[in-house]
């Protein structure tokens, strides 16, 4: 049971898990590319599964939506979601996948709306796990809408609707949804929490503060494959990148990076080694470029704004005060 709900749970995570269903490619593309913005409405992108966000757009007909998804819009939708490698048909499949989740947008009836909102957490709830036969993953958002009526009303107002309980973080390999529990080797693997027991904690990613772990010698990762004594070439050079607006400036520290990385990991493929020579923006980071090559995938994720935006601004500048007063 636990296992099945985990599968459902992983699905909710938009992992295109074992599924051979019709809309799989649209779903994959959505999960890989579009969800970056459309899962949560970054830059006011219409949110997946939120009928209210889509109904005004649907008024213009789906042909217009396809066209805008392919060509992009001035208000922030990048052409093909920023990935020209996709074919037109693939983008259309992704749009179809997004529209399928808000099929009911036209009908303003009350039940579907909260249900659509709850689709994700419910996947982890026992009810979602109950429909026995292999839960059809591709259809899940819609399917959950259908079964949602059966949910006890109390569940809807559970205290934490979306926050992941501590117990569900860093699960051991047989329960993490990507390892095959039927494989003997899986059970020989180390559970992450065992490894992290003595390490300093953080609030995101692996929930390990890797910078502190290496700084306090709690871990001593090798700099060289075979020689445990080799010392890294650490370079202590901070680059301050001024940010327009009220967000604190970004301090890019070479020290913390050269403790892990070689210069050639970043220079020149990702960054030209010259202060200010690289155009960096949050959008490019979220798309997995620049700092987003590592941050949000292996190094600490983008949600930890303060680790990068760490230099308070001098808010006395006139333009800033005006903006500040307006708030």
């Amino acid at each position, binding site marked *: 049971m636990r296992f099945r709900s985990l599968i459902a749970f992983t699905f909710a995570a938009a*992992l295109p898990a074992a599924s051979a269903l019709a809309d799989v490619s649209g779903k994959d593309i959505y999960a890989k590319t579009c969800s970056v913005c459309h899962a*949560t409405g970054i830059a006011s992108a219409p949110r997946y599964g939120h009928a209210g966000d889509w109904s005004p757009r649907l008024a213009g007909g789906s042909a217009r939506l396809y066209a805008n998804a392919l060509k992009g819009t001035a208000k922030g939708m990048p052409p093909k979601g920023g990935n020209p490698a996709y074919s037109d048909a693939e983008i259309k499949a992704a749009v179809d996948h997004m529209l399928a989740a808000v099929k009911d947008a036209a009908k303003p009836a009350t039940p579907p709306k909260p249900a659509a909102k709850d689709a994700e957490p419910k996947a982890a709830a026992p009810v979602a796990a109950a429909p026995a036969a292999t839960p059809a993953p591709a259809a899940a958002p819609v399917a959950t809408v259908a079964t949602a009526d059966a949910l006890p009303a109390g569940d809807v107002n559970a205290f934490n609707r979306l926050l992941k309980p501590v117990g569900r973080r860093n699960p051991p390999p047989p329960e993490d949804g990507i390892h*095959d529990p039927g494989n003997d080797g899986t059970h020989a*693997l180390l559970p992450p929490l065992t490894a992290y027991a003595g390490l300093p904690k953080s609030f995101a990613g*692996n929930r390990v503060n890797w910078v502190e772990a290496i700084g306090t010698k709690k871990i001593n990762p090798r700099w060289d494959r075979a020689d445990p004594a080799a010392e890294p070439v650490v370079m202590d050079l901070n680059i301050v990148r001024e940010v327009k607006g009220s967000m604190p400036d970004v301090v890019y520290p070479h020290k913390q990076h050269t403790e892990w990385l070689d210069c050639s990991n970043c220079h020149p493929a990702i960054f030209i080694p010259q202060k200010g020579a690289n155009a960096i923006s949050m959008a490019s980071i979220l798309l997995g470029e620049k700092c987003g090559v590592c*941050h949000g995938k292996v190094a600490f994720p983008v949600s930890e*704004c303060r680790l990068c935006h760490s230099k308070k601004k001098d808010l006395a500048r006139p333009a800033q005060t005006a903006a500040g007063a307006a708030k």
Partner: protein
Amino acid sequence: MKLAGALFAAVIMALVAVPAAAEYADVVLNKRSEKEGVRPVVFPHWFHRIRFQCRVCHHELGFKMRVGANDVTMNEISEGKFCGACHNGDIAWGADRCDLCHSGKPGLPTGIFGGHETGGPGRW
């Protein structure tokens, strides 16, 4: 500030609304495995970064920092390339322990798992 706040909220939402059970930065390698009749490979970043700096794999051993960009075959592994540079019975257990690497659920696509927040391969 409002915009930053909204963006902040959005990203926090991304964190929680897209829960993933897999450990952050786990990589599934399945370009050939399943076609050749073995389970996909699961590569745990967290486990290896406790023991090695990124540079060892991504500079010394030449793993490109992009999921799916490395063409790994068992032949090369036995010749001491890629995973085989360490999984050679010398630095770490050898390539005969198939089920420790080929431990993924059948059907998983090549990709990074565990709730990544930034875009994927081919995006940069």
